[in-house]
């Protein structure tokens, strides 16, 4: 692809070039090594290039929390686990704290008249804001850097304790590892009761600890098996109808595997340019499978050889499996040697998988199962132009999308009715731009796709951008957004826009001290709270606009 001409050189980037917290000192690391849970780790199990001290110094940080600070918010995505070093924390038991305390948007649907009133309350002055009342969450600023927001805190801790059921977490408690390693949302909200000191371990460090230390592995795996794995297996259709005992046996034998880069969005562009050859390989065509792969999170590409290149069969996401056909036919016809994998599996970004060993399947699952359908033959017989949309979607990583805005340009008359409808449901401000990458006569417009893996949410200091608890939309709480622009820069698809807000007379608002324009992050919110669902779809007079997920999109 790229020429091998001689150019400028740099040293190869190292793993710990960007430490989690650049202010971790060796002294602090020393102190950590004395902590009970860490003291028990056998340092010699760690490889020389990833020493325990290195992990502690570069992949962890120590944070002091004040009373009321929210450490993790239920439903949020996070990349860190926490070890309580000192102090008490409270875990809020289900149903959890109200959304306004948590800084979430109120998603209750509007009444008909309220919706209709938008007709005359909308302004055509850009980005007018009328409500400057304070959010119910306070913003905790960093001690040394006054304009850096560190997090949000509860205003009234005693009231919360009074009104909600909580469980105490004390010194030595480890939490958050599921979300960090598994990309699942935080299962509960946890806040500091009084002052507390926590060791935050980012997922890279946690992974190493799990890989190399027996104790930590046991704890993490056990917790994982007890909760997430069991749930995942229960939801997989081929395990339906099996007794609890059998399920326990199966889950005990499952292995966890991860592939690829967790932070795929930052290397997204380079990955795209390098192409399929550079995708981390999970399984190869013509090799023999030793277990069924259940995809837990992330995306994998299933491909077959096509001339000197590879052709995509499909992409697999959470809930999909790989290798079932081949394992089944190996079991069914043991003398038939042709049970090799018919396709290769590579990871797009990262993949978290569970491997179910073949003997387990042969003993418990295959006898009761119908033969699985063959996917590969269907693809082989199809001409390649029928797959070009899929290939393009995988290339552009639109597979991440759950609600991609796809516009059929053959039908679109460029009338902007969709943009106006979007504006009519957002106070007169549209929340997407009617341009985007095109393929054949399809355009994927720059509107938030409410991704399966919303990388925009990583790094939001206030949690203003969050995922709706009903599991669907990714929404920005305009009130708590501080306009830092992290999400806008993180989004690999450029679907978030920063805007300068204005008052009701249309004058742009600036900060009172620095006079810098006050910005807010804005994006499509799938018309949360509006009647009738996304207005853009309903407003297109030519039926050109749809919100789709690419695995269901039948062009």
């Amino acid at each position, binding site marked *: 692809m790229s020429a091998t001409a001689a150019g400028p050189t740099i040293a190869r980037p190292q793993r710990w070039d960007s430490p989690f917290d650049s202010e971790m000192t060796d002294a602090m690391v020393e102190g950590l090594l004395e902590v009970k849970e860490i003291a028990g780790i056998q340092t010699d199990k760690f490889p020389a290039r990833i020493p325990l001290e290195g992990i502690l110094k570069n992949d962890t940080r120590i944070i002091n929390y004040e009373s009321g600070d929210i450490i993790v918010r239920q439903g949020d995505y996070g990349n860190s686990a926490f070890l309580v070093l000192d102090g008490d924390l409270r875990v809020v038991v289900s149903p959890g704290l109200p959304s306004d305390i948590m800084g979430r948007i109120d998603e209750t649907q509007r009444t*008909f008249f309220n*919706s*209709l009133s*938008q*007709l005359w309350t909308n302004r055509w002055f850009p980005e007018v804001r009328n409500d400057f009342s304070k959010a119910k969450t306070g913003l905790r600023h960093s001690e040394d850097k006054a304009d850096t927001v560190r997090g949000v805190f509860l205003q009234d801790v005693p009231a919360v304790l009074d009104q909600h059921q909580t469980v105490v977490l004390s010194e030595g408690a480890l939490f958050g590892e599921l979300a960090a390693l598994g990309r699942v949302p935080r299962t509960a909200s946890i806040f500091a009761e009084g002052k507390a000191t926590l060791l935050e371990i980012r997922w890279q460090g946690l992974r190493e600890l799990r890989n190399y230390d027996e104790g930590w592995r046991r704890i993490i795996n056990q917790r994982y098996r007890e909760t997430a794995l069991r749930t995942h297996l229960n939801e997989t259709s081929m395990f339906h109808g099996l007794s609890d005992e059998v399920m326990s046996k199966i889950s005990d034998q499952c292995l966890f595997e991860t592939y690829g880069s967790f932070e795929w969005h930052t290397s997204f562009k380079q990955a795209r340019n390098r192409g399929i050859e550079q995708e981390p390989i999970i399984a190869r065509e013509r090799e023999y499978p030793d277990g069924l792969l259940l995809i837990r999170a992330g995306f994998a590409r299933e491909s077959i050889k096509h001339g000197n290149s590879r052709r995509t069969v499909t992409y697999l996401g959470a809930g999909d499996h790989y290798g079932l056909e081949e394992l089944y036919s190996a079991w069914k016809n043991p003398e038939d040697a042709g049970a090799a994998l018919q396709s290769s599996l590579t990871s797009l970004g990262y993949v978290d998988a569970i491997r179910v060993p073949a003997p387990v399947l042969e003993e418990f699952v295959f006898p009761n199962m119908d033969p699985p359908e063959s996917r590969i*033959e*269907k693809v082989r*017989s*199809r*001409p390649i*132009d029928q797959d070009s949309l899929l290939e393009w979607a995988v290339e552009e990583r639109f597979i991440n999308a759950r609600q991609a805005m796809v516009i059929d*340009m*053959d*039908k*679109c*008359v*460029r*009338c902007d*009715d969709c943009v*106006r*409808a979007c504006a*009519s*449901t957002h106070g007169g401000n549209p929340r997407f731009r*009617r*341009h985007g990458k*095109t393929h054949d*006569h399809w*355009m994927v417009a720059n509107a938030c796709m409410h991704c399966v893996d919303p990388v925009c949410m990583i790094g939001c200091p206030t949690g203003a951008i969050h995922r709706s608890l009903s599991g669907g939309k990714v929404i920005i709480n305009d009130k708590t957004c501080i306009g830092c622009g992290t999400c806008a820069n993180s989004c690999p698809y450029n679907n978030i826009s920063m805007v300068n807000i204005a008052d009701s007379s249309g004058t742009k608002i600036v900060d009172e001290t620095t006079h810098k324009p006050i910005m807010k992050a804005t994006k499509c919110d799938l018309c949360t709270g*509006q*009647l*009738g*669902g996304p*207005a853009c*779809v*309903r*407003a*297109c*007079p*030519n*039926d050109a606009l749809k919100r789709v997920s690419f695995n269901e999109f039948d062009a």
Partner: protein
Amino acid sequence: MNLMPSPPERESEHLPAVSWWDKLSQRSRDMILFVLLAASAIFGLLLLTDAYEKNLERTDTLTGYILFGLIIFLGALNSRKKMSMIPLGRASLWLSAHVVFGIAAIGLFWLHIGTIWPVGLYEQVLTAIFYLVAISGVIGFLLYRIGARQLTQSGVEVIYERIPRELYEIREQSEKIVLKCTEETGSDTLAKHYEDTLSWFFRKPRFYWQNIFGLQSSAHWMRFHAASVVRYLDEKETAHFDELMTLISVKRKIDHHYAAQDLMKKWLLIHLPLSIALLVLASWHWFLVEVYAI
């Protein structure tokens, strides 16, 4: 209407049998249903007016009220477009209804006035405005169907409001190329040719009507001017000229977009104001009939 030919369908195994109804786009399905609805309504109305006539009752009161209600419904499309915030039905459904019932309104209009051109000045004005609205509507509909595909197949996509910016940047870029060429090669052949002819092309969108009617005029013009100058350019200059040609081909596509999108927006300047005038005059007509009709 799929204008893009596709390779022959293979007898593909696992494809489930899809009925012809499911193969149609949502738009086509809506239209078919509305055509059936309109046809039966008109048929019913013809039967009704026939019964009225046989009973020596006036039919134009009946057809008049229906026609008035119909043109109000047709005009309500404009309001629907502004009210996507409440669920009032898909806008594509409204547009299909608008098109079908718009055509039906022409027939109903003839049924109402009993002739093609009435006697009486203000009625003639009303009829003329009605015809203009109807014809402009039909033309607009055709523009939409044909223009959308033309634009998609042009190979670029550009937002109408951004075209001036795009053209400015292309123009700037092209001037840079020409200046660079002069600097690097020392000859001003290209620069002079640019000033004489090519700069005209870059100044604003050109070949508007030719683009609308699908003529290849801009490509033709470019080939001519390229051929004219190329014979005087040496290798280095030709390299610069090639860069310029890339820009020109992009600009041509933008011109096409400009022409098609402009017309697709401007035809409404005829259709909408006239339909307002129609509504006003029709209301006056209604008032007169209520007061004066014997």
